[in-house]
């Protein structure tokens, strides 16, 4: 009896896999199938090509970068990056990069520290009207940043935190907190309630339950949530452009100094774009699946 029960779920899982494979195999191998596979490849290459071209141009000399028709096979050089990081012409990108890293990393940590208890309260021990609370969190994402820009600008000006990275950290925390609560709640909802009941019977308090049960179990979910928050903070332009100028300038704001520059510096522009995008590109490629889940607010599983 026990063996039958144990064997049963795995059998159905195997059956499911087999039926999925059969459906896919039926569509594979025909001439149409090969054509559609090729089509997917062509579309994929078209979409990735500008990114590849950015990387390639950043590795060309300014002379080879600014040619018509394009010289794809010109010799590679790191001059574009030397020019960008060397600050021989214009400001150094290091302070903005450090500001961006600070704003993204610190705000992400604060978001996670605030979101874990909130998500716990909303999933494990639902408070009354918890759906209303969830919708409230979500609704703040429907509130465009521009709608709060002016008061933030006036407040920052009045209390003297214009061009202050700490103010940006606080704003990015507010920007990402709702998403983080949504995502972490969806991860927490998968944990069996018995686990918490057992912890409660054993006399574990809130902090201990969070630290020794919840965090270890949902650590992949926490990593995914942190990644999303980091990317959104790193990419943000409107708030940073309005509320910072020199001292607290972030990397995207620094990039806008290339907006008017002409193609004489095409390799340098591409090196700048690549260098600033690299942290997000690496993080995104490393966690493709988690990215989808997070971007759809943990709703699509």
């Amino acid at each position, binding site marked *: 009896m026990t063996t039958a029960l144990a064997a049963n779920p795995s059998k159905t899982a195997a059956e499911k896999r087999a*039926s999925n494979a059969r459906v896919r195999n039926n569509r594979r191998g025909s001439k149409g199938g090969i054509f559609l596979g090729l089509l*997917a490849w062509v*579309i994929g290459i078209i979409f990735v090509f500008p990114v590849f071209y950015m990387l390639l141009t950043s590795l060309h000399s300014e002379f080879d970068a600014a040619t018509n028709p394009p010289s794809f096979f010109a010799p590679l050089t790191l001059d574009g990056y030397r020019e960008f990081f060397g600050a021989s012409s214009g400001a150094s990108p290091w302070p903005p990069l450090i500001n961006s890293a600070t704003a993204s990393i610190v705000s992400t940590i604060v978001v996670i520290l605030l979101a874990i208890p909130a998500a716990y309260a909303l999933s494990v021990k639902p408070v009354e009207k918890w759906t209303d609370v969830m919708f409230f969190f979500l609704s703040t994402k429907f509130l465009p940043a*521009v709608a709060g*820009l002016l008061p933030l600008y006036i407040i920052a000006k009045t209390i003297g935190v214009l061009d202050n990275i700490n103010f940006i950290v606080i704003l990015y*925390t507010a920007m990402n907190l709702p998403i983080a609560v949504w995502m972490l709640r969806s991860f927490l909802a998968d944990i069996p309630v018995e686990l918490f009941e057992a912890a409660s019977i054993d006399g574990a308090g809130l902090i201990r339950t969070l630290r020794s049960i919840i965090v270890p179990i949902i650590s992949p979910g926490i990593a995914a949530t942190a990644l999303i928050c980091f990317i959104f903070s790193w990419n943000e332009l409107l708030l940073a452009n309005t509320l910072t100028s020199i001292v607290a300038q972030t990397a995207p704001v620094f990039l806008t100094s290339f*907006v008017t520059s002409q193609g004489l510096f095409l390799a340098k522009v591409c090196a700048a774009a690549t260098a600033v995008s690299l942290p*997000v590109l690496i993080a995104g490629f490393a966690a*493709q699946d988690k990215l989808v889940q997070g971007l759809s607010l943990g709703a699509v599983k």
Partner: protein
Amino acid sequence: MATATATPPDQTAPAPKKTKVPERSFGERWGDKKGWARRVPLLPALAFIVIMTQLPFVATILVSFTNWNANYPDEIKFGTLQNFVTVFTDAGLRQSVFFTILLTVTVVLVSLAFGLGIALLLNRNFIGRGAVRTMMIAPFLVVPVAAALLWKHAMYNPEYGLFNGLLTQVFGASAPQPDWITDFPRLAIMGELIWQWTPFMTLILLAGLQSRPGDVMEAAQVDGANAWQTFANMTMPHMRRYLELAGLLGTIYIIQQFDSVFTLTAGAYGTANLPYTIYQTLYNAQDYGLASAQGVIVVIGTIIIATFALRTVSSLFEEGN
């Protein structure tokens, strides 16, 4: 609970009154230690969000009814509707409202259509599927300002941009060499944004396709449904929620789009959308009242769209419960 499940034998008799838990007084609830223990973990996040997002918005609404211009600080008065009248009567501002709608609708619909097609292709079994998927994600991972810079200088530039370079390569020296941004400013912005947002739509829709139950699809095949019938009767109904969710999220982000407009055209050639216009009203004109009214209009527009689509998210949300 018990009354709900136990059906009274005599149906004509009046339904038994639900045993209702008596409403506890505020004092009782305030003193309920267990209740507070449940609420406390939520409070820091909730308080933080209310202070940082709701209060500024309330302030924006209040300021939108003033004629507050930082250049004339002595003339501030509350209770005017002039800012809202200005937004809809000033030709330039009306155009920015119009372009915001046009940009959002075009980018979201085209990216959704491309995204669905590509997701269907990627859902098939072919050699290098993982590699193609990774390539498709790349545009979404480039920092938005960097992507806009890339398109402005490396793609659209009339002299050494990739597009005109490829035209020269294919058609020779006499090939047409359009100045993409000045000749087609709106299409230039839309093209760049569609390139960045199609991957996002693809990813969400692909997740939807992969959650289709395999045995049901097989049953449809056994029953002799052709590809189109399977698509129309089984795939699309299943995908509706995912299409709506992707559309909703795309809309929320595109309606607030600032980076591309700022970088590619700086609002020139009729491409200023509302977020960019607000930035300018605030930054250059220092007209706080008008900027706030514009902000309020963006929010109203977003709420209208979100109200239509929110039901979708709510259904997802209940099933994921």
